């Protein structure tokens, strides 16, 4: 429910024309359509149905303006990642993936201070991680990204926080297909959390999906020759905790 409030706040700021402009109507369904279409190509995805705009827009309203098909399911699942020294990694894999930078951030537990307009702590974290990893232009420097979006519209707030676009232009990015699987920066090739939400492993999954993409092992959802990827996960009922990792070949 807090999540619906977060999104409403975001849309309201957009509707008012500043600092985010250009989204007078609810657009979250379009993120859901993109992610649910991607899930069709992922044999590990939990939900692989309901991907047409009509199905998403006609699914039951849960907490206005968010509909059922914009909400994550409860899934069972597991993810394993093997972390090793550089030497051992080269022995274990012909295509090891390197962690160029990884960091986390935590917000205050007291929710009254929040204005629910954006993911302001994620923005701070991105600045730190990008600096460590030498990322100057996220949209150009990243080839793939997996963002934690238990509710589809969160993706838009994350585009903003992660600097994929000028602040407030996230809706254009979505509308122009930039983040579709064959776009300039594919986001949530796996179908994202909207399609598979297996608790904590769902957070690890964002990192695993980027590793698979870089290794060229993402099967039907494989993006062509990605070299640098961004994995994002968060936790806490208001998204108090964020983790970002820049992975490279």
């Amino acid at each position, binding site marked *: 429910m807090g999540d619906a*409030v977060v999104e*409403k706040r975001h849309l309201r700021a957009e509707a008012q024309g500043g600092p985010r402009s250009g989204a007078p109507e609810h657009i979250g369904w379009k993120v859901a359509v993109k992610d649910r279409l991607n899930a069709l190509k992922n044999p590990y995805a939990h939900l692989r149905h309901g991907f047409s705009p009509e199905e998403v827009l006609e699914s039951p309203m849960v907490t*206005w*303006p968010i509909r059922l098909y914009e909400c994550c399911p409860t899934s069972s699942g597991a993810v394993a990642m093997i972390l090793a020294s550089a030497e051992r990694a080269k022995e274990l894999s012909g295509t090891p993936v390197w962690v160029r930078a990884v960091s986390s951030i935590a917000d*205050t537990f007291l929710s009254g201070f929040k204005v629910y307009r954006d993911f302001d702590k994620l923005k701070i974290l991105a600045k730190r991680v990008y600096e460590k990893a030498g990322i100057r232009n996220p949209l150009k420097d990243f080839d793939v990204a997996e963002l934690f979006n238990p509710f589809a519209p969160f993706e838009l707030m994350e585009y903003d926080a992660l600097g994929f676009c000028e602040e407030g232009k996230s809706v254009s990015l979505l509308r122009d297909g930039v983040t579709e699987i064959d776009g300039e920066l594919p986001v949530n090739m796996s179908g994202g959390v909207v399609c598979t939400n297996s608790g904590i492993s769902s957070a690890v999954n964002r990192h695993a999906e980027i590793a698979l993409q870089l290794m060229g092992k993402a099967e039907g959802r494989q993006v062509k020759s990605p070299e640098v990827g961004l994995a994002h996960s968060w936790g806490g009922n208001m998204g108090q905790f964020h983790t970002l990792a820049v992975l490279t070949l």
Partner: protein
Amino acid sequence: MGTPQVMKKEYNMHLDFSLPLGKAYTKWMQALKEKKILGNTCGKCGRIFVPAKPFCEICFEEPREWVELDGRGIVESFTVCFEKFRNCPDPPYVVGIIRIGDAATCMTHFIGGLAYQRPEEIPGQIRIGMAVEPVWAENRTGDPLDIAYFRPVK
């Protein structure tokens, strides 16, 4: 032979726990019993917190000065719930982010007293920035629900 079905059992764990509220929240909740909405102020940055806070997040100071507000606020954001969730009222109902007076913080509460025929009409009944006032519960125990809900100011 059909595909063997995997069985599922439904269960839930009942957890009792108590949360020590500390001085600031205790004073704030006690005042609700008397139909008073208090705030406390940071001596350094001057921000008012409603509900009261044990410390200022920016200055790390204990807000020591207390003020009484008239309880009127504005809707900063809201959602309308259409589904039944455990421990929540029967839908439809409105949850709002409400800023009381000039507080630096907001409180989450129900918005009621709306006129509608069908649930789908509810979102149109509320607007961001709308003035609201508290409707007090009959039996007050020192709890945020001593305010039954907020309603639009006529």
